[in-house]
């Protein structure tokens, strides 16, 4: 299997070569990992979930994305190699590169719809919070019965643990780690370019080759809140020549949020997916009513006593969900049938975007929110759905403090990097760093939408 170079072709990166003569055997290890059932599962998970209902070309998978991330990670690691010179640690680089390849193993089906359902389910049921996809990734890497662990152990028995630790760490511990955790890491660099290309949106531009060519490294000095003791966070920064391309990169990312990831219609379909999965969870003790077998992976995973095992999780993918949707649209449960049927035939919900209408006036917006909350409370989750995503220039949890290494920084003549929005001639308005909250209501009928619109405008109660 390792007697020749392996090659893949990719619409974003062109030819991706896995080099059999790689000194640390990283490329051939990556190639073997790609063949495992855990990695092949990613072929059946679309990168953007239901976005293809709005952008028909967005059918790319986490499989292609993960290989793209590995390819980018190799390029970024070259920057580290150039910086480190003779001190370059090949073994450490291998851990990071394989973590880049495997970072999405733990993603569930249908992206945010599945995550939203699990979060809502945890709120309803109490008890343990839902495990994050990074935790599932680590569990899949460490699973002694799994294909990933066997391949890793064959080369080095310490690899699986090192990779799992790196994937779960919240901050980079060295500059190698920054390859997969920085404002310009291998993951972002692939998904932004790939999502932009596959959705066909012309938003912004990403000059990735120029950006990588103008990368440097820096140890950021960080004091959390007003703590007196600093910590040093190793990260990538751009050289001055890369500043304009870095601005374009950041704006392109921002536009992808506003135009693609938070698209009103897409988010409506995600609401339906979440509501349907919640309904399955509620009725999991009566699978017959849902037209599903007890052994269906969704039933096994979502029932209250499931324990969220890794065995069940690895069987969950988009194909399993869509197979369930096909049966649910003919089942005895009215709510599940309605939602499944709408998803199957791509019938969008009717949307009312109150942030669009009143976002300029915070007081009015709050009053409208309260009125609509009162008006919709009883129907919420049944025929009415509410979506309140946050976003800002750097993050989706907009009220959370942005990690210092997640901000884009550019070296100045004095040697220290500046955050890109601090330059006096920047084209990025600093206000974009402030959180923006969208509030959207979705309705199953035009009548309910019109009634709610009147409530929103204060015409009736």
């Amino acid at each position, binding site marked *: 299997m390792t007697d020749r170079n392996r090659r893949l072709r990719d619409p974003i990166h062109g030819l991706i070569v896995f080099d059999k003569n790689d000194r640390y055997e990283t490329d051939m290890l990556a190639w073997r990992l790609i063949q495992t059932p855990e990695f092949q599962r990613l072929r059946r998970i679309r990168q953007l979930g239901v976005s293809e209902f709005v952008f028909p070309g967005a059918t790319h998978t986490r499989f292609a994305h993960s290989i793209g991330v590995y390819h980018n990670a190799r390029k970024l690691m070259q920057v580290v190699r150039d910086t480190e010179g003779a001190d370059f640690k090949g073994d450490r680089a291998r851990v990071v590169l394989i973590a880049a390849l495997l970072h999405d193993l733990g993603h569930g089906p249908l992206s945010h719809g599945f995550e939203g359902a699990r979060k809502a389910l945890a709120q309803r049921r109490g008890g343990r*919070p839902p495990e994050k996809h990074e935790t599932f990734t680590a569990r899949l890497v460490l699973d002694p019965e799994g294909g990933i662990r066997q391949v890793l152990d064959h080369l080095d028995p310490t690899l699986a643990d090192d990779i799992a630790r790196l994937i779960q*760490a*919240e901050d980079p511990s060295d500059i190698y780690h920054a390859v997969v955790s920085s404002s310009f890491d291998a993951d972002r660099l692939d998904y932004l370019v790939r999502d932009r290309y596959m959705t066909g949106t012309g938003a912004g531009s990403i000059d990735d080759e120029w950006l990588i060519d103008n990368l440097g490294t820096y140890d950021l000095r960080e004091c959390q*809140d007003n*703590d007196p*003791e600093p910590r040093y966070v190793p990260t990538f920064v751009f050289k001055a020549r890369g500043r304009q391309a870095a601005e374009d990169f950041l704006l392109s990312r921002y536009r992808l949020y506003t135009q693609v990831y938070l698209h009103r219609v897409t988010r409506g379909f995600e609401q339906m997916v979440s509501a349907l999965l919640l309904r399955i969870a509620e009725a999991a003790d009566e699978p017959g009513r849902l037209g599903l077998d007890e052994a269906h992976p969704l039933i096994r995973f979502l029932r209250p006593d499931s324990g969220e095992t890794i065995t069940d999780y690895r069987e969950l993918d988009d194909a399993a969900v869509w197979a369930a949707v096909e049966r649910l649209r003919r089942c005895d449960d009215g709510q599940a049938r309605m939602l499944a049927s709408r998803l199957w035939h791509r019938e969008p919900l009717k949307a009312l975007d109150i942030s669009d209408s009143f976002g300029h006036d915070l*007081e009015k917006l709050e009053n409208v929110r309260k009125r609509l909350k009162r008006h919709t409370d009883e129907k919420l989750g049944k025929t009415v759905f509410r979506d309140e995503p946050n976003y800002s220039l750097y993050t989706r949890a907009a009220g*959370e*403090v942005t*990690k210092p290494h997640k901000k884009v920084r550019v070296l100045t003549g004095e040697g220290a990097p500046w955050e890109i929005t601090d330059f006096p001639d920047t084209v990025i308005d600093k206000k974009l760093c402030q959180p923006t909250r969208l509030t959207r209501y979705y309705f199953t009928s035009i009548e309910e939408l019109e009634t709610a619109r009147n409530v929103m405008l204060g015409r009736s109660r």
Partner: protein
Amino acid sequence: MSEREHLVTAVLQAADGQIIGRIRMQKVVYLLEQLGLDGGFWFSYHHYGPYSEELSDVLDGLVKREKTVEEEQVPTENGFYSIYRLRSSPTQVRASLGRLPWDRAKAAIQTMAAETSVVIELAATIYWLRMREKVADWKKELKIRKPSKASDPDIEKALALLGRLDLAGCACAS
């Protein structure tokens, strides 16, 4: 103002009018909730441990809409930190903060204010790992998630803080 806006205003009042740092603010309210505040804030795990988007929204509303709280952004070498401050000194004498007796809440907030933001983050995360995620070897998990913060001395300080807050019974056994 909503009930929650009143509650967060009262938290600031109990903190003598101000709390320094967004991260500290989140963790203070999280630990108060564990003491019995009953503010109803839903916390999930984010980059700095337990975090409530609802709390963040309430603060945002108090700053931007109600204008009863001022957020001063103090510049630092790599960004800024926030100081949340009541715009006027409240005259109201309170018997309780949520469901917590006022004196107990005030003492707890003062105890937390004496610690660094990192130590409070570690304390909140230890509590979360033990009580919410039910992680048996919470110390190992803490070091995996926060390798650059979870030093042994700071873990000791976090445990001592939980002890002073009477939350140690749930957090010390590893």
